[in-house]
């Protein structure tokens, strides 16, 4: 594997560039995943989401996840990019591309990357609803 393609960006995600970064002539499958801002959350309507990160650590964790998958599924090449800042409904917050000679490993890798990102990469979202803005995941401190 070459350098891990694992980035944060403040701009809209360029899916073509992401796919191009993993695709090789030996690949028969490219699986992509996009996480997008939806218009509701737990019964409330969502207008936009602001993503904040511990940037230096988040980039390290993203790169670590890509490296882990490189060891676990050596035939798959993985790229991941997470967008930060304010995103409106329908915009992609994260994109993952996994290329492999065969589809099964590419699907597995793609699923693993998003699950690991959600578990441990230090990124936080703040949802804007008609009632105001609130950080997700750690309420109770009011």
């Amino acid at each position, binding site marked *: 594997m070459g350098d891990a393609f694992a980035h944060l960006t403040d701009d809209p995600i360029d899916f073509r560039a992401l796919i191009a970064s993993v695709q090789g002539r030996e690949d028969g499958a490219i699986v992509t995943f996009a996480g997008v801002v939806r218009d509701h959350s737990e019964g409330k309507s969502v207008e936009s989401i602001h993503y904040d*990160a*511990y940037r230096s650590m988040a980039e390290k964790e993203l790169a670590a996840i890509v490296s882990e998958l490189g060891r676990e599924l050596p035939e798959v090449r993985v790229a991941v990019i*997470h967008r930060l800042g304010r995103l409106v409904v329908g915009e992609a917050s994260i994109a993952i591309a996994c290329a492999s000679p065969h589809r099964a490993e590419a699907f597995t890798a793609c699923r693993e990357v998003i699950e690991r990102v959600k578990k441990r990469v*230090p*990124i936080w979202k703040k949802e804007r609803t008609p009632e105001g803005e609130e950080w*997700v995941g*750690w309420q109770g401190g009011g």
Partner: protein
Amino acid sequence: MQIRLLLFAVLREVVGSDQKPLELEEGTTAAEVWERLRREHPRLAAYDTPPMVAVNQEYADPATPLRPGDELAFIPPVSGG
């Protein structure tokens, strides 16, 4: 010894700052810094689940003693993706 405390997301808003230098006794742990932060900011009293801890950009055991110059961050439950 001096360390640098970084604050993110809800913690940054509660404390009103994204980082602060802290003067600590040798051997102070991240868990002790969290207790100090909770005493200084009553709003944090309600956050009784201690957050995850990162030292120098890696997840760390809250009981590990800090060293001079460390970059300490409390990591509220993450919600990226």
